[in-house]
C-alpha cells in the first residue's frame, strides 16, 4: 500500500477487499444493497483518512466478506487505532498485550480445570 496514502486502517481494509478479488466500489455497491449509504468515493476517503470511517464499517465488511476471526480482530484493531494514530509501535504493544492476556486467561482456565501450565506463563499482571 505504500504510495497510496492509506492509513493503517485503510491498508488492512484494502488487503481484505483484494483478498476477496473485490474492489472498493464493489464493496460500496454491496453495502448499498444492505441499506448503507456508502459510495466508492466515501470508501476511498475512509481508507485515506480524509474522513473517519463509520462505526458500522467493520460490521458491514463482516457481512459482505464473512471475515475470519483473525481478519475481524485485525480490522477492529485497525479501525480503533489506525485512523487517528497509526503508529506501529502502539499496535505492536497492543498485540503483545493481547497475546499476554489471552495466555493469562488460558492459564487460569487450565488451572481451574486442574491442568498444570508452563512455568513463567502469564507472569506480568500488575
Amino acid at each position: 500500500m505504500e504510495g497510496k496514502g492509506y492509513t493503517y486502517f485503510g491498508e488492512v481494509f484494502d488487503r481484505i477487499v483484494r483478498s476477496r478479488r473485490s474492489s472498493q466500489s464493489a464493496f460500496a455497491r454491496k453495502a448499498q444493497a444492505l441499506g448503507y449509504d456508502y459510495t466508492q468515493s466515501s470508501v476511498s476517503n475512509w481508507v485515506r483518512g480524509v474522513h473517519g470511517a463509520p462505526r458500522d464499517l467493520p460490521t458491514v465488511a463482516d457481512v459482505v466478506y464473512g471475515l475470519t476471526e483473525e481478519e475481524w480482530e485485525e480490522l477492529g484493531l485497525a479501525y480503533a487505532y489506525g485512523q487517528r494514530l497509526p503508529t506501529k509501535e502502539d499496535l505492536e504493544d497492543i498485540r503483545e498485550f493481547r497475546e499476554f492476556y489471552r495466555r493469562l486467561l488460558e492459564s487460569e482456565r487450565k488451572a481451574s480445570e486442574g491442568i498444570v501450565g508452563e512455568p513463567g506463563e502469564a507472569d506480568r499482571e500488575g
Partner: protein
Amino acid sequence: MRGLRVVEWGFRNKRMEGYFARDFDMAVLAVQEDLRPEARRAREMEAEGYDERPSAFKWRQKACYTAANVLEVDPDAVRALRPRIEREQPEWVERVKDEWESFRDVESVAFWAEVPIQAVVAILLNLEERGELLVNDDY
C-alpha cells in the same frame, strides 16, 4: 456485566494511558504503568462505563490517549464518565467547580484542579445539563 480486570502494562508511547478490550471472556483495561493516580482512576471509570454499556459503545477495543487540550478529548470517554463521575469522585466535582469560578476554560481547570481533562469535561457537561454551571461573568 462480566466484570472488568485491570492490568498494568508498559506501553512505550507514554501518551497511551490505557487500552480497553471486551472481546475476551473477561473485559480488560491495560493501564499504562506509572500513571498518576488521578489519570489511572479516570481510565478505570471510563472502562467501567464501556463495560457496563456495550450497546452504547459498539466497538470491542479502544486505545485511550492523553488529551493535551479540549479538542483532543475523546467524546466516548466523556460519555462513559458522565453517569458515574459524580457518584464516584465527588471531590473532583468540587475541585472543578472551584476552579471553574476562577478560570472558565477547561484546560486551566484541569491543570489547577488536578483532574484529568476528559473528567473535567464530563463534570462540566453534567453541571451544565442541570443548569448549575456558571457561564456568565456577571454572577
